[in-house]
């Protein structure tokens, strides 16, 4: 496996050149949003400086160029995740959350009714819970949850029971709180055996590890560009071509129709059927640049780098603080990514993050949009540490110094 030098990545990321409170920034919040390399920022600037106009409806030179850039982004994102038919399967949304809502509304609301079962897990992000709760409210679907073990793994002991009679399993491919990566392929096979579809929340996985939707055996995947070195304002829904083609439209407007009369309309084919209005064009260009950048690092190497840092952090936290720091994450490096959640004895996560800020360390305190998981863990909030390809050991060293300070202050 080719490895990359994280210092070179740091050099590519302009934001890491700034200081906070006079210190080098130790950005340990990539799970919230990653920092963009200059190739991504410049791709978008260049788009606005040379090519920008609306897509799909012009015949003039720049309209063709803009359309081509947009559709090329669809293809490059598709090929990045191993989509068999990118042109028919990739829908650009505004974020992973919209992707889930689109899927829940277009597929869910047209197929599911009273008593139909959707299986989630207790480690889901709200983006993969609330849309289903809305369907529960409106259409009476039933939600079942796979639990979380005390080792912060998905509890699969009752998998087949839970799947029995289900229509869909919608499940995170990597927990944004624990870092846990569930065995998607195994769950996908079980889901299909039970006659259910499987959707994955790939928001945390896609920018951090190799991912192939065919190898995973899934039917739907949702993710956001801003967590994979790309821009804000764009997300992706991938769904198998036949599944997507079978789904009725969600948002209505220009670009998603074949015809509109005063009393009726005919929707266009997928994926355009799901892209109402002017799409995030510059953002698609930025996302394509992010994919290019990630490919140049090598996704195996990106995953290995995250794990190396995770191992270092686990080891140092344990040896330096012992029981004073609880780690809500698998303690080994198997089937996990570069995310770990901390809780300090006597120091609320919010206060820890505040003290860390003065050390130049950026970590996120709170429930991380996973309140059901926080209830399961029995902790109101954690301070989450997460890595990107620009993260280095001295970020973790700065974290350790800040924890020391916080413990002293509140102890």
């Amino acid at each position, binding site marked *: 496996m080719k490895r990359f030098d994280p210092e070179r990545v740091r050099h590519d990321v302009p934001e890491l050149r700034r200081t906070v409170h006079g210190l080098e920034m130790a950005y340990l919040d990539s799970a919230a949003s990653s920092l963009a390399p200059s190739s991504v920022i410049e791709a978008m600037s260049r788009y606005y400086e040379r090519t920008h106009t609306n897509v*799909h409806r012009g*015949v003039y030179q720049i*309209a*063709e160029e803009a359309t081509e850039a947009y559709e090329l982004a669809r293809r490059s994102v598709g090929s990045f995740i191993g989509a068999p038919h990118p042109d028919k399967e990739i829908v650009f949304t505004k974020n992973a959350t919209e992707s889930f809502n689109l899927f829940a509304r277009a597929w869910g609301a047209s197929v599911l009714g009273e008593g139909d079962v959707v299986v989630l897990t207790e480690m889901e992000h709200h983006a993969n819970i609330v849309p289903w709760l809305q369907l529960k409210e409106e259409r009476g679907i039933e939600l079942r949850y796979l639990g979380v073990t005390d080792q912060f793994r998905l509890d699969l002991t009752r998998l087949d029971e839970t799947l029995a009679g289900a229509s869909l399993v919608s499940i995170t491919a990597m927990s944004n709180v624990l870092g846990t990566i569930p065995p998607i392929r195994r769950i996908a096979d079980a889901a299909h055996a039970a006659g259910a579809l499987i959707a994955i929340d790939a928001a945390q996985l896609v920018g951090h590890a190799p991912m192939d939707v065919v190898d995973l055996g899934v039917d739907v995947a949702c993710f956001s560009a801003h967590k994979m070195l790309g821009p804000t304002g764009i997300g992706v829904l991938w769904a198998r071509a036949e599944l997507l083609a079978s789904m009725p439209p969600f948002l209505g407007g220009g670009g998603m*129709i*074949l*015809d509109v009369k005063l009393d009726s309309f005919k929707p*266009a084919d997928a994926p*355009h059927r799901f892209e109402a209005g002017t799409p995030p064009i510059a953002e698609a260009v930025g996302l394509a640049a992010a994919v290019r950048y990630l490919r140049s690092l090598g996704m195996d190497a990106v995953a290995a780098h995250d794990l190396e840092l995770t191992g270092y952090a686990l080891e140092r936290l344990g040896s330096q603080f012992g029981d004073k720091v609880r780690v809500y994450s698998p303690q080994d490096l198997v089937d996990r990514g570069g995310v770990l959640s901390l809780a300090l004895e006597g120091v609320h996560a919010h206060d820890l993050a505040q003290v860390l800020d003065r050390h130049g360390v950026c970590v996120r305190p709170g429930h991380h949009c996973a309140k059901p998981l926080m209830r399961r863990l029995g902790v109101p909030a954690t301070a989450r540490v997460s890595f990107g390809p620009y993260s280095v050991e001295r970020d973790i060293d700065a974290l350790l110094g800040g924890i020391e300070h916080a413990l002293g202050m509140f102890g």
Partner: protein
Amino acid sequence: MDDLEDLYREIILDHYRSPRNRGELPTPPAHRTEGFNPLCGDEIVLTIVLDDDVIEDVKVDGHGCSISQSSASLMTGVVKGKSIDDAKGAMRSFKRMMTVADEDDPDADEPIDVRKLGELAALQGVVKFPVRIKCATLAWNTLAQALVEMDA
């Protein structure tokens, strides 16, 4: 502006000004299929009568740009009176010329012998204008749709 003249060849302008087989056949016996180009609003109404495996008659109506309308007119000239197989063969050749060959076209990567395309070759200049390819293929896609609907 050479490639503009390549796009708008005289034969295309002629078919645009004086479309062949224009109008609608009575249904029944004709089968009627509508085709849209959602992006530019072009519309094709294709009416077709089969006699066994032969396209006995076909007419097109609708509105659109010179490329979509002349392509429709040229198409009717090529397929009318031909067997369905021959029509499908012409469709495959045309789509290959337009660089949008179907995935299940076994000869998709073969070089195209434009001489075999006859008058259809007049539309060759369209490939330099990617946005217009949809205009040129609209009538053919509508024909394909009609054949599917008729199980032919």
